[in-house]
């Protein structure tokens, strides 16, 4: 199957910068509280990508966090067709209450709709508030078996503990975990502990904004531990783009963080 995840497809816009950005962390869809003048549609995302020179994006549906994961995926299937620029991200959830498909069925749905990554929203007021492993074990078994990347969107990083995440990384090493935490001034020292031990942990740039942080992480752990994401449309994608563009790492490392690593993960997913 040709996945269309090639880094070189950039015929949609003039050359602004040499990096092939793939935004791993963005949302589209109905939202009850858009900011002034904001448009949360797929069309608006594509327009922003064109404006800034972003080659690709991995949007999930807002409904997965704010309303219902099943509805989120149905909305995504109807409104966000996969293309060489857009890689829809399926919302993951626990199935035990009967509201959400069992993991095997979920993978079938993902394959049918061209989704190669899943996203787990952890939010106190959401479908799932914590990384409760007993509820998620079967899901993670399935994602691990197919090497499907999982983006964990932790609304409150202090709710997510290194011990919980370490259990996931140790037990399901075939499931790449992309961690997104929105706060940058909270305790981050556990990143380093986990980076030292687990190659399947990735952190997106909105969750890691320390000055000279990209260079420091690349020097200590290599360039595959950080990935470009934006948290669009809350944030402008330009913030983390510039963080990477101005970072003091070589071109290969920048390309890996911009999108190379995530493109590889999407390619490796066996769906």
């Amino acid at each position, binding site marked *: 199957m040709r996945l269309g995840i090639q880094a070189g497809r950039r015929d949609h816009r003039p050359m*602004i*910068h040499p990096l092939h950005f793939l935004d791993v962390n963005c949302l589209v869809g109905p939202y009850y509280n858009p*900011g*002034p*003048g*904001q448009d949360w549609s797929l069309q608006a995302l594509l327009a922003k990508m064109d*404006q*800034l*020179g972003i080659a690709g994006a991995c949007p999930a549906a807002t409904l997965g966090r704010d309303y219902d994961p099943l509805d989120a995926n149905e909305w995504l299937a109807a409104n966000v067709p996969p293309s060489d620029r857009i890689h829809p991200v399926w919302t993951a959830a626990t199935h035990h209450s009967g509201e959400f498909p069992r993991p095997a069925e979920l993978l079938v749905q993902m394959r049918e709709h061209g989704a190669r990554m899943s996203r787990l929203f952890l939010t106190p007021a959401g479908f799932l508030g914590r990384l409760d492993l007993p509820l998620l074990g079967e899901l993670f078994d399935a994602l691990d078996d197919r090497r499907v990347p999982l983006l964990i969107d932790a609304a409150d990083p202090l709710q997510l503990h290194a011990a919980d995440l370490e259990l996931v990384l140790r037990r399901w090493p075939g499931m790449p975990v992309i961690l997104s935490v*929105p*706060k*940058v*001034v*909270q*305790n*981050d*020292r556990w990143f*380093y502990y986990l980076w030292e031990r687990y190659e399947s942990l990735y952190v997106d*740039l909105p969750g890691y*904004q*320390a*000055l*000279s*942080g*990209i*260079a*420091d992480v690349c020097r200590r752990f290599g360039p595959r531990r950080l990935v470009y994401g934006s948290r*669009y*449309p*809350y*944030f*402008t*994608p*330009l*913030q*983390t*783009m*510039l*963080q990477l*563009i*101005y*970072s*003091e790492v070589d071109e290969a490392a920048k390309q890996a963080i911009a999108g190379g690593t995530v493109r590889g993960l999407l390619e490796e997913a066996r769906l």
Partner: protein
Amino acid sequence: MNAIAERALRGERLSDVHTIDWHVHLGKWVTMHMPGQGEELIRRAKALGISKLVVNGTKWPDLRASNDAVAAFAANHPDIVIGFAVANPYQNGMADEVRRCFDELGFRGLKLHSFFETYHSARGISSYTREWDAVFAVVAERHMPVLYHGVVTEAMVRNWPGIPFVAAHGIASVATMEKMTAYPNFHVDTAASQNVAWCVTTGAEILGADRILWGTDAPLADFAQRLGVVLDSGLPEEDIRKILGLNAARLLGLTLRSV
């Protein structure tokens, strides 16, 4: 897209834009690892072409030592570092310390942190009215600006119209900007960790672009990362230049040539 944003996307130095980072810290931050402290701040700022860094001490327990450290840092980098004093009423002689910072250490403003107020505090930090009045008298006499995170009340802004007050991270609070817009000495900076895409445009609509100052919170955050929210605001380039440095230059009494 404006020309500065295009240049930034190409990774160019922006040394001719006269950028002044209004909100920079010296010292450690206990909850996070910061690889870019101290001399790294200077090196990275110069790499981007930032013209000035307005630096204040963070959580040093001894404020006098903190101010001395900032003064030494500024003395080592007089071309780029502008020092701000830090004071709080829980340590005696606040007004005297601020006067020392202005007169002996060459600082150009005052930074007030709310985090000195803990649950062990005998009183709320804003309630030391007499002490704050003594400090603001020193500040007003020397025409210095005040950058504050908490601490400053609406009454203080109203009672000291000659002092430019800048709410740290203030761009994140629409309600506060709307409430304070009637006070021409009220300003905000952009050093918010969760800068939503629309915050700068909204701030400009409420306060006008003349009352917004670019700040990063470095080294907690990356200089370049915090440029994005201003450069992608959709504001005219003239307003973007004001926010990135010209407004700060005005409050600091700097001429464009000196920036």
